[in-house]
């Protein structure tokens, strides 16, 4: 393995301060994820998978310990730097797609490009990426609520890819899809990994986890298998 992992967690702990008392969602987790790995994170409900995703997606910061993404210590970054890293380095694929309801399929894919370059896409990249995930061009102008689950997930994957991020974070990407569509989506993710992306997949489905080259098992906030 390379000495410089793309993602490194060093003794990361995340504690939520609840009215009922402190709840430790991640408990002294240390692990490395190398560039171009395909990793599945598995665990029962409440094991800390979502908290781990939030940490890896820098939507949250550890209570203690250190998290390095692409060599940068997340805790030392400003909020704006973290926002830019979410925009440029990480692509998110959510279980419920989370497309922007007021934008068309094409605009949803174009949106991260606009965030990055501060102007509408005139290069055709958004359309190319949509095409690359097998999305029907004629559906580009449709709003998310006019698309099927599979179509929405393809749009979500295109959106995640359009800024050419190093990391693709997928949270139960097939959870809301029928089996056939789910397998198509997994084929897409495998293709992305083959094109050099680091794919991190959170799932509780062992069949889906089989697509990954490494499975990290969480239980009660701890890594119990890797």
């Amino acid at each position, binding site marked *: 393995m390379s000495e410089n992992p793309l993602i490194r967690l060093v003794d990361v702990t995340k504690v939520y301060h609840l009215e009922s008392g402190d709840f430790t969602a991640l408990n002294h987790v240390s692990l490395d994820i190398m560039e171009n790995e395909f990793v599945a994170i598995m665990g029962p409900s409440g094991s800390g998978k979502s908290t781990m995703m*939030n940490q890896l*997606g820098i*939507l*949250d910061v550890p209570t203690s310990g250190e998290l390095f993404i692409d060599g940068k210590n997340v805790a030392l970054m400003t*909020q*704006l730097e973290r*926002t*830019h890293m*979410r*925009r*440029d380095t990480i692509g*998110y694929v959510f279980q*419920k797609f*989370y*497309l*922007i*309801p*007021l*934008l068309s399929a094409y*605009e949803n894919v*174009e*949106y*991260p490009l*606009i*965030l*990055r370059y501060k*102007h*509408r896409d005139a290069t055709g990249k958004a359309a190319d990426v949509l095409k690359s995930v097998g999305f029907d061009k004629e559906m580009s102008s449709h709003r998310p609520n006019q698309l099927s689950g599979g179509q929405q997930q393809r749009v979500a994957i295109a*959106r995640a890819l359009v800024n050419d991020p190093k990391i693709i974070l997928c949270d139960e990407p097939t959870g809301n899809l029928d089996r056939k569509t789910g397998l198509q989506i997994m084929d897409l993710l495998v293709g992305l990994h083959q094109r050099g992306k680091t794919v991190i997949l959170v799932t509780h489905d062992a069949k889906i986890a089989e697509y990954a080259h490494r499975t990290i098992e969480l239980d009660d906030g701890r890594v119990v298998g890797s």
Partner: protein
Amino acid sequence: MRDIFFDLSVRSVRLNFMRSLLASIGIVIGVVAISSMGMLGANMQLSVKQQLSSDVNTVMISSDVVRTTSNAGTPSTSEGVTKSQLNDIKNAAGTNVVIPIHRTNTQFTIGSTDGRGSIYGFDPNDIEKFLTLDVGDIPRGANDAVVGSNLATNFNLVVGTRIKIGPPNTADRPTIRVSGILPARGFASDGINTDNAIIVGDTWYTNQYGDKDVYNQVNVIVKNVDTISAVETAIDDKVNRKTQVIRISDASSRLTSITQTLGTITTFILAIGGISLVVAAVSIFNVMMMSVNERVHEIGILLSIGTEKGEVRRMFLYEAFILGIIGAGVGGICSLVIGYSVVSAMIGNTTYFFLPDSILYVPEGMLIGIVVCIVSGVYPAWKASNMDPIDALRSE
């Protein structure tokens, strides 16, 4: 190509069209209130200014009401301009026309009807120097008098009508004869309000009321209005050289005073109009908060995929701006129609409506409406941009 955040805002407004429309109606009402009231005030000022400015060539001189004697310690009053002061005024005024004026209030009886009004005493030859008659002639005989238009209308006076002067039930009341009737003069800036007055010769007046060599007011009609300040200074230097014994004013200062008063009234009614904008601001704030609360999940998506806080803020401020633009645009058009109607109905004259002093209230009202909307959107936009993306995503 348009900003995508602007597009998102436009679509959000369209999606909640009815709610947005109702919120904008608040702004429409506010803009109309401010603009129409402002235009009404401006037209009032312009109209009064125009009416009064024809008399700005008149200097009005009256006695300082109270003077304190230097030796006895008790105040003695001087209620008029004395003969010697009048001579000094004449000397200082040079070739300009000087008109000494007697004035008091009186009761009178016409036929069997009693009335009350002002009575002026002029040298009959002075009357034509600043008044024109509608009917009849200036007083020629000792008992002749000229009456104002309102008095003539209210009491059906014609040339030849006789008027008994003094309180009813008084024995041996003097009688005057109407020799002429004046046209309506309105609120005269030279201090001589004739519409409800009787004007008699100075001899008749002083025979009845005394004070032969004391005048209530002296007017100086300046031939060249540009010299009015110089004439006032000359009179002041001459008559007030030792102590302040007379007060000198002119129509321009009165005009300023009246327009200032009207300006204050305009500001007051603008403030009342402004209250409706405050109500509109609350309505816009409410709509914006609803918009933020309904879009929490969407805000979570935007923040999680790398939208900057400032961009989220901008999106909601655009939305407030759009509501403002709609409200201000419709409000501006309505203001022109309603403002014109109000000015026409209340002033009866729309000559000044399209002058900059008046019409500028429309863009000003619109601008205030837009600013109010944007200010109302600041807190909701701030709230949206500072959401925690994880909490926002969970909010489904």
